[in-house]
Structure formats: structure tokens, C-alpha cells
């Protein structure tokens, strides 16, 4: 089985989707001849034609709005927003239309679109290029929000997102685009987009993370193992809807939970997970739930970004804290 990076896996999934469904169309800024600024669509316009892999003008509102119109009229648009910092003009279309069209027409018009965007820090990017805004989108009823953390999951989750009958926001941890290689079979198999993935099993603590934070949490879990502490590591993969069952089952077993996300603390998705555990797993909890997150600051410009993003050391500290509690 060929090994590939996440960006290659994404390209493979996009290519597969274009090949298997003539209604799939890709558009966005620089996705054509340039192949996207991260090369996610490299070669696709040459292979599938400029009418199916289209360069747009700089026009985030229209990119999202056209995706809504095209999806409602029978296409399966996969639109790219170049960076999450430039997603805000598209939010109007996502929140007011993409997420609502099925409901407001009682199912007459639907919106099977995917909006892809690289998110998160770690690549020393310019300002406005490194934010983690997934909670903002997960708050919108009617959307799905999906984030892969490995090449294989990027492939399977993206295929699922494209085939899904409803709008999916697909955030790609750009720090991982070329950081990991693993075998990915181009078999057209989708992964479920309502299930979290239990990446490793342990007995003492549950680590919940997604995107690039999986790498940090995994490293923390390795170090914990050396100290005789074993952790469940859950990759959420789907942030909306949230697979509460997998998280609850794990915490009922371990009694301890540390949630890790790169986004700011306040009103982040960790708060929802913590509240859910407080509501449903109180009697299983041996220690307070801890969150290791970005700070309630602007994402620092890149000389300081490493201090903002949670790392294995901060995760370890939080785990030791809950282990010491009980």
C-alpha cells in the first residue's frame, strides 16, 4: 500500500470524488493551474478540466454562496477557502443559507456542499492564517464540522463529507499536511462522519483531541506510558455532530478526562465536552475535567505561536494534575 502525506491523501480523495461523480465540482482561489496554495488540488484541473476544477476570483462570499446555489441545483461542490482567517465573509452564507436551506424548504432544496479550509498554527504563517475557529462553526445548527488528524482519516473523512447529503465544513490541520506519512489505500472507502476514533486504549485517563493536537496528545500518552500511566486517546474527527457516546464510555472507564484543543479556551468545544461529561458521567469522575487549550488571546504572530499552542508538556502537566487529585 502506498504511503502518503495528508495533503496527498486529500488530493487522492478529491480526485476519486471527481472521477466517481460527475456532479462533483471544485472551485476556489488558486485551485486550478496552481493546484492550491498547499497543492491539495495539484494536477486536478489538468486531469478533470478547468470547468470542474475552477479558479475563482478573490471572492469568499461568492465562493460560499455559489456553493449553496450549485448544491441546491444538483451539483456537489467542494469549495476551498484558502485559510480560515478568510472564512468570515463566507460565514454569512454558511449560517444563513447552507445550514438552513433543507429545513426552511422542508427538504425540498438541500445543500450537499463541502467547504474545505486549512486551519490552525504551526507553520510560521502570516497574520490571519493560523486561527482555529472550529467551535464557531460547530455552533451552527445544520452544519457538520469534520477535522482529520492523519492521512488515512483525511482520505476517508473527505470522501464521506463529499458524499454526505448536507453541508460539511472540512478543516484541515495544515501543520500536519506534510508531517506524517502512512499507508493510504485509494479504495474509495469513506469513514463515518459521526464517529470519534479511539486511537489508543488505556485505563487511567481519557485524552480528547482533534486535528494537529492529536500528535501532541499522542506524544504525551507515550511519555505517560513510560511513567506507568495509560491513556485512552480519542480523536473526535467529527466535531458536529459530537460522538458523545465514545467520550462518555471512555471516561466512565478511566474516571479522568483531559481535553486538548488549539482554539481559545472560552466557549471552545472543550467546554461542551466537559459539560456533557459533568451532566452524564459525574459519578464516574475521579478528578475534575481539565482543558489544555490555546489562550483567550489573539493567535500570536509566529515568533510566539509555539507558546500559544498546547504541546505534550502542557498536556502532561494537566494529566499529572488530575492523577494527583485521585
Amino acid at each position, binding site marked *: 500500500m502506498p504511503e502518503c502525506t495528508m495533503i496527498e491523501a486529500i488530493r487522492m480523495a478529491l480526485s476519486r470524488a471527481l472521477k466517481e461523480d460527475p*456532479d462533483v*465540482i471544485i472551485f476556489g482561489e488558486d485551485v486550478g493551474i496552481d493546484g492550491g496554495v498547499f497543492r491539495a488540488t495539484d494536477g486536478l484541473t489538468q486531469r478533470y478540466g478547468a*470547468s*470542474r476544477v*475552477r479558479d*475563482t*476570483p478573490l*471572492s469568499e*462570499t*461568492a465562493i*460560499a*454562496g*455559489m*456553493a*449553496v*446555489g*450549485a*448544491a*441546491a*441545483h*444538483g*451539483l456537489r*461542490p467542494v469549495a476551498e477557502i484558502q485559510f480560515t482567517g478568510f472564512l468570515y*465573509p463566507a460565514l*454569512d*452564507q454558511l449560517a*444563513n*443559507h447552507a*445550514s438552513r436551506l*433543507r*429545513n*426552511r*424548504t*422542508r*427538504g*425540498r*432544496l*438541500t445543500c450537499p456542499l463541502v467547504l474545505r479550509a486549512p486551519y490552525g498554527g504551526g507553520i510560521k504563517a502570516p497574520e490571519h492564517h493560523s486561527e482555529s475557529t472550529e467551535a464557531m462553526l460547530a455552533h451552527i*445548527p*445544520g452544519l*457538520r464540522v469534520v477535522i482529520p488528524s492523519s492521512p488515512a482519516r483525511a482520505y476517508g473523512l473527505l470522501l464521506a463529507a463529499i458524499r*454526505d*447529503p*448536507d453541508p460539511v465544513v472540512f478543516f484541515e490541520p495544515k501543520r500536519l499536511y506534510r508531517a506524517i506519512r502512512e499507508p493510504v489505500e485509494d479504495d474509495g472507502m469513506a469513514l463515518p462522519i*459521526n464517529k470519534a476514533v479511539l486511537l489508543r486504549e488505556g485505563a487511567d485517563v481519557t485524552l480528547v483531541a482533534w486535528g494537529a493536537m492529536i500528535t501532541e496528545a499522542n506524544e504525551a500518552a507515550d511519555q505517560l506510558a513510560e511513567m506507568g500511566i495509560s491513556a485512552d486517546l480519542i480523536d473526535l474527527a467529527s466535531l458536529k*455532530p*459530537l460522538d*458523545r*457516546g465514545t467520550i462518555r464510555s471512555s471516561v466512565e472507564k478511566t474516571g479522568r478526562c483531559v481535553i486538548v484543543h488549539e482554539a481559545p479556551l472560552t466557549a471552545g468545544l472543550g467546554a461542551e465536552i466537559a459539560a456533557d461529561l459533568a451532566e452524564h458521567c459525574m459519578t464516574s469522575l475521579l478528578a475534575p475535567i481539565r482543558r489544555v487549550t490555546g489562550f483567550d488571546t489573539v493567535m500570536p504572530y509566529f515568533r510566539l505561536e509555539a507558546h500559544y499552542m498546547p504541546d505534550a508538556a502542557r498536556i502532561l502537566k494537566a494529566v499529572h494534575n488530575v492523577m494527583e487529585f485521585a
Partner: protein
Amino acid sequence: MPIQADHELSGVTVFLDPAGLPVLDLPRFARHRETLVALYSAMVRTRTFDAKAISLQRTGRLGTYASSLGQEAVAVGIASAMSDEDVLLPSFREHGAQLWRGVSLEEMFLFWGGDERGNDFAVARQDFPVCIPVASQFPHAAGVALAMVQKGEPGVAVAVGGDGATSKGDFYEALNMVGIWTLPAVFVIANNQWAISVPRVDQTRARALADKAVAAGIPGEQVDGNDVIAVREAIERALVRARSGKGGTLIECLTYRLGDHTTADDASRYRADEEVSSHWSEEPLVRLRAYLVAHHGWAKKDEEALLHGCRDQIEKAAEAYLATPPQPVRSMFEYLYADPTQDQAAQAGELGDA
């Protein structure tokens, strides 16, 4: 040659003047009594619906309603030029267009009465529901037009917005897309001179809203939006152009909002009664009726029969709407996703048996 801000405007197309006198040779479709009567009847029906909707709102039986009083010719002119394979993307003041396309009176009442089922049109299944956030329907139209091109469909996407919509980025971005990709789309501006309380003159220094087409490299033109013949003729030309692969057109229909912005608005706070009264002499029904009377023997009994028929139809639709029970409370969970999520099922459980 550079385009100057004070360049010559090409003029406003009008066939029937406010008194109903032809100022140009009428287009072919307007030479038939049957067609003109259909256009006139549709406008009368729209106005009758409007009056009933306002009366229902005033008596607490309908939600906030946006009147189309005075703008019936824009809506009817647009829809009467369209074919079944075209897609209408209206703002919230094109009742006449929706009715012509086949949306039922009962569906219209249901929608304005706060019930999503009013958007589940039995016919015109591909048409969009009214768009409440101003101008955000224009990008949808570009997307629908793109889908039509990709699928090789012969249709055209027709989006309608007001003068205020032309100040929004959505409008420019979508217009630009239509230009770049030569999309089969027609963008119509119902310039009724007021965006709630902001008059056209404070909306833009552009001399004509149609001039905004220049920036997108597509044709733009102005028509008398109170002359249903002029509106239909311009839309027909734009549709033919779009269907033949030549791309989009921007059409500005000059009209006037004779009513309040919505039933929640009081226009006397910001515009003088005299201004409104002066525009009553230009409204769209009078001129076509005058022409029908003068040239097609439209008699008092025809008028009475039409009014009676409209009222009867609308009363029946209103009764049917009022007799329709609300949807089950749980329906709020049922249409958000193709497959309701587990979270939704759990939350719906809080409703008990409702």
C-alpha cells in the same frame, strides 16, 4: 475611452406611459389581448393578495409582511418572461413573480404566517424561497447558473433584489462571477427608491444602478418598472441572450414602494406623504388597464369579474391557511439533516409527547 461618472445613460425603456399611451411600438407578445389580460390579472391578484396579507397581519393572524404595493409590474414582468426550466431566486417582495411561477396563495400565506411548509412549493420545485438577508441570493443565482452550465440544462437563474441590495458585497461578487464565467443568469434590481428609510440618493452616487454592470463587464439597462410590458420585454431579451451562451445581464427596474417597508415599518417617519401621492399617478395597474380599455375593449364588467374572482380565490386560500394546524413541534428537528443526529433525538425527547 474611459467611462466617466457622468457618461450618457442609454435611457429608460418604456412602452406604456403612466396614462397607458404607447410611446413605442409594442413588442409582439403585447399585441395579444389574452397576454395583456393575463399580465393585468396577475398584477391585480398580487395586489389583492397584498391587501389581504396586510389585513391578516393587522388582525394578528399573519407575521411581519413585506408589501409589494406599486411593484407588481416588476414581479409579474419577470416571471411572465421565464420558462419552467428557469429558476427564480426572489427577495421578499416578489409575490407576483412567485404566484406566476405557480407558488400557491395558500403556500404564500403559510410562509408569511410563520410556517416553513409554505416554502415546500408543490410546483416550481427548483425555485428558491424568498431570501431575507439582503443580496445573499445573488451568489446563489450564480451557483444555480453554474450548475445549469455543468449539467447542460437550458435554464437561466433569475435573481431579484432591491436598490439597497446593490450596495452589498454579495451583489458585486456574484455579478463579477456571472461576468467572468459567462453564466446564464439575469440579475434584476427592483429599484423602489427606498431601502427601509434610506432613499436611493443616499444609497450610491452611481447615476444608475444598472451602471454597476460596467464593473462586471456585462450589459446593464434601465426599464420603467411600472410598465409590465417593458419589464417583460427586457427580461425576455436577457433570457434569450443567456440561453444562447452569451452570459448575464443586469436589469434595473425603476419603480416605487407605495407602502411601508413591512408591516413593522412606518414610512411616515422618513418620507413625505406628498412624495408617495405623486407616485400613485405612475403605478403599474392603472396604465395597463387604461390601455386595455382603449385598445382591447376591457369593460367594467371584465374588471368587476376579475376583482371578484381574485378576492374569492384569496379568501378561500386565507381560510385554508387559517384552518391549517401548526406542524408538530418535533418537526423542528426533522428537516435539519437528511438523517437527524443523536443529539437531536435526545433534545427532541425533552419535548415529551409534543
